[in-house]
């Protein structure tokens, strides 16, 4: 369902070229929960951004449901992202002036329909944020922030969830909640691509791959 086909990405800075990814290929099935780990700087984040349609690879194709997403115009790719892809980042990227409830609703900006309120509350409750609805990110713990970001990514129930080091700042309890949430999502047919250092987290993954270098 996701074919990452022979992609390469290099960065050039101050006349030095870094090959973040070099002829990398990967296939993910629908409902698969794949964990990726590897040393820092091996190109994991780069892979996620390319897979999510946010970063043009220098070479290769990304086929999602046999749609080559980099053949689409930037605008169509945005629509595609809104429909199919959820992102979670280590740095949460919550909007500071919005409450938890509002942050979770942010994907609605790119959607035609709002998610019914009871579904939003259900999602928020499942991530243990019921008491934090009206709090702003500044008032949240790291775990709460990451759970809010996860709720946001899952609001429109995307086909693919791309998660980058989302457990890096979390304690064991929060890691459990988050990983269980991902497993649950995967169990319901969502495809998860998780980048992590946390060996513990891998327990729930169906498959773990290790990237050495690009």
């Amino acid at each position, binding site marked *: 369902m996701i074919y990452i086909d022979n992609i390469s990405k290099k960065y050039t800075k101050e006349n030095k070229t870094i090959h973040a990814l070099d002829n990398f290929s990967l296939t993910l099935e629908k409902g698969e929960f794949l964990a990726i780990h590897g040393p820092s700087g091996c190109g994991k984040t780069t892979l996620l951004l390319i897979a999510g349609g*946010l970063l043009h690879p220098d070479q290769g194709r990304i086929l999602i449901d046999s749609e080559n997403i980099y053949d689409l115009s930037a605008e169509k790719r*945005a629509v595609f*992202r809104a429909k199919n892809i959820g*992102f979670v980042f280590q740095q949460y990227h919550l909007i500071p*002036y919005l409450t938890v409830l509002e942050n979770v609703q*942010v*994907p609605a900006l790119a959607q035609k329909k709002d998610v019914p309120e009871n579904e939003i509350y259900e999602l928020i409750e499942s991530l243990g944020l019921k008491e934090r609805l009206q709090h702003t990110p500044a008032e949240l713990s790291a775990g709460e922030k990451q759970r809010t970001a996860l709720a946001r990514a899952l609001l429109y129930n995307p086909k693919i969830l791309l998660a980058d*080091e989302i457990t890096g700042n979390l304690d064991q309890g929060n890691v459990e909640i988050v990983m269980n949430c991902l497993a649950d999502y995967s169990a319901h047919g969502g495809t998860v691509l998780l980048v992590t250092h946390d060996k513990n987290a891998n327990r729930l993954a169906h498959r773990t791959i290790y990237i050495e270098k690009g």
Partner: protein
Amino acid sequence: MNISTLVIKEMKRRKLNFFLGLLSVVFAVTTVTGALTMLQVHDHKTNEIITEKEAETHERMALLEDDYRKIMKKLGFNLLILPKDQNISDLFANDFASKLMPESYVDSLAASRSMLIRHLLPSLQQKIEWPEKRRTIILIGIRGEVPFLHKDPKEPMMIAVPKGTMVTGFELHDKLGLKQGDEVELLGRKFKVGKCNEPRGNKDDITIWINLQEAQELLNKQGKINAILALKCFCSGGNQAQVREEVQSVLPGTQVIERGSKVFLRAEARARAAKEAQDAIQAEKRHRNKLRNQLEKFASILVPLVLLSSVLWITFLFIGNVSERKSEIGILRAVGVKEKSIMRLFLLKALLIGIFGAVIGYLLGLVIGSVWGGLFSFSLFNLYLFLLVLLCAPLLSLLAAYIPAAMAARQDPAEVLREE
């Protein structure tokens, strides 16, 4: 949730940023409105001042006019009716008229229904040697006023000199040592000095007035006169020509000249006063105009400067806002918000700032401009200007925010999202 709710939430919860933007627009709009209001107040005041001045002048002129009318009524103007063949140059050169006309002319004129002529004084005059005293004198025979038949008799203008008496000019009685009551001989006839005149500084000082009939007898000019003086003729607004015509229609054998009168001087003075008043108003107008030009010049420099700095201020403010919201823009792009919408996010904010700023700035400018100009009136509210400001301020604000908004839309989402 949609873009507008996000814009409003951002403005509501980050008030400082919003107020700084608002302040810039308010500042610009206040300056523009204030300057225009000041000019408007200036024009208003100019009108007031000029109207007041004009009213004042009008009043003064009316007073003057009234004065003039009263003077005219008292003075009238004096006509000298002379025989047609009298040479006017001779009259002035010799100080008396030499040609003759029948005394009955006076009665014809008096019998006419003239409404313009009032007092008629016939006279016979001649420059002669006073043989008994060896002096050159002007001898004038007068008979007093000839009453108009169709009018109430008025008090006589000049009391007729009774027969057997004379009135002497100052020079004569002074040099000859004559006193009232003295008996003196003139052309072989005895006269009593009835009155000694005060000095007048003209030919009157060497004149002797006697009764007309006696003068006619002494000069052997029975039934003749030289001139008729018509005193205090009605004359308002220059109908002298009409008077003249009237006299000549009754007495075709005469000519009419005007005795120099103060009336004309007064009329001239009045015209001069009117001109001075007009000049003063013109000068005031010029002064107000000059002031206005200065104000206008000042505003024409200030306003573009303020507009430019305001636009730059908003631009920098939005650049700051965009860079502060990099992470937000990144995540919005990640969830599928289009570049266009990112742009709208900032332009909508600029638009709202422009609208709020226009309304607040306009009202503030109106107050400041009118306080500064010293006039507060609801008539200063200018709907046209208000609508113009309401259109232009948001446009300028949009213009100012356009580049930052485009920068935000073009920001590479991968760049911020990769950061750890």
